[in-house]
């Protein structure tokens, strides 16, 4: 069976069983941060990064991060704070046909705003074309840029990143 420990990427089943992943209902509320952290590792910077107190880990730093989607305002502070690059923001209600994804990206060159990029799955498989809406790389992120793309709503769940832009 496909799982994090056999393929390298978490399966949807594993994600749905983790406390940082939203339900169908959470998704329809508006833009939210989604945490794909399903293994107990000693790590807790996301908890303190959240100005809303929406992410809880607690005293035992190997606890999984628990997201309170009622409190999350999708500010994005947690994205670059996560050393595992395991947090992104998705907005299901962005427009009638399109959704929005903001994700961490640590490859040069960075994509340019307005250009077309290739949206990919958790296994790097091509899904669809996407358009770069925003590129943020403030000093406080310490070189973890945050890229925002829009892509068709039908691929909402499977897209998590883009194909690395390589210089020829």
């Amino acid at each position: 069976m496909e799982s994090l420990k056999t393929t390298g990427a978490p399966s949807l089943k594993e994600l749905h069983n983790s406390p940082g992943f939203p339900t169908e209902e959470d998704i329809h509320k508006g833009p939210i941060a989604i945490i794909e952290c399903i293994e107990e590792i000693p790590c807790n910077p996301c908890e303190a990064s959240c100005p809303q107190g929406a992410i809880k880990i607690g005293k035992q730093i190997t606890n999984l991060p628990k997201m309170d989607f009622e409190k999350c305002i999708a500010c994005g502070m947690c994205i670059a704070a996560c050393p595992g690059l395991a947090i992104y923001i998705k907005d299901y209600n962005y427009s009638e046909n399109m959704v929005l994804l903001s994700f961490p990206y640590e490859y040069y060159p960075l994509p340019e705003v307005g250009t077309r990029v290739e949206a990919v799955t958790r296994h790097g498989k091509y899904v669809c074309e996407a358009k770069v809406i925003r590129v943020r790389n403030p000093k406080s992120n310490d070189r973890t840029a945050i890229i925002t793309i829009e892509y068709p709503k039908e691929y909402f769940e499977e897209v998590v990143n883009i194909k690395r832009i390589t210089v020829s």
Partner: protein
Amino acid sequence: MYETELAIVGAGPAGLSAAIEARKAGVEVLLIDENSRPGGQLFKQIHKFFGSRDHKAGIRGMNIASTLLEESEELGIETWLKGEVCGIEEGRNLWVVRDRKCSELVKAKKIILATGATENAVAFKGWELPGVMGAGAAQTMINVNRVLPGKKVVMLGSGNVGVIVAYQLLQAGAEVVAILEAAPKLGGYGVHTAKVARAGVPLYVSHTIKTAFGKDHVEAVEIVELDSSFKQIPGTERILEVDTVCLATGLTPLTELAWLAGCKFNYVHALGGHLPIHDDKMRSTQPDIFLAGDISGIEEASTAMEEGRLAGINVATELGYISEEEARARSNEIWDSLNSLRSGYFGERRRTSKDSMLQKGKEVIKWNH
């Protein structure tokens, strides 16, 4: 002859942390490292570290190194670079070869060994071809010397070293053709494997390298599937075109000086093999020799820094710079942090292994109480 209160061998995360704690307490410290730059492996760790936010989590390893170096410079810690410690006598005297030119005797009241570890190799047919290298070596090439060792890489080993270096090879512009893992489950943190997976790198469990081919450098490897008892399954061979093979197949502690000094050893498989016995003060079976970092068991920089602090504080206490009471309070705090770093799915085995080491230390190290 150079005389000092405390000599520390190795200026990586453990040695630097030990030096800073001891110097802050007032101890006269000499820090010796064989490299031309201190910081150990930290400068090539360009990724953000895990751990507790109270202990530098979320900061890139190279920036942690810079902070430690600044602190040690501010404290005026005497540091000998390109200093190879080649011998240890009577548990206190070090024979050091400096700048590959002259030899010097260092007389110290206390010694902390923070010598680190070395990469394990795996032998397969063709493993001696240029292009086969340790994953750590490739990491030094890309992140310290900014040289790409090759364009198409296969990584053997999916522990954190393997997946982190694979990610950094992608960042450096190489293509990672595959990551192979002999065990039926991937080893590294899931967030690390997920990073390379979504970059399109295939990860194969129950696989290893059978042969590396090439005329005067690696041009391809033949990989093979393994059964549950790690035997190669005939007929499952496949060829991958690569020019570089990285081996991320574990680390072995650098324990030569501890052997030379007559420290008693204990075999702990989960921590990297034969290790000098130590107690909860990081003291070895030699009363004046303390240990910190990978030499006391293969772990991570976060635990190495805490162990270094522990050793530094306890040495300072023995030399009369810190009261027993204060040392106990600060040590307890550090142990809380170490225990929390050694918990969860990945840490539990290290924690129980360390506990058995400490138990051994308690039995063997008599002058403690």
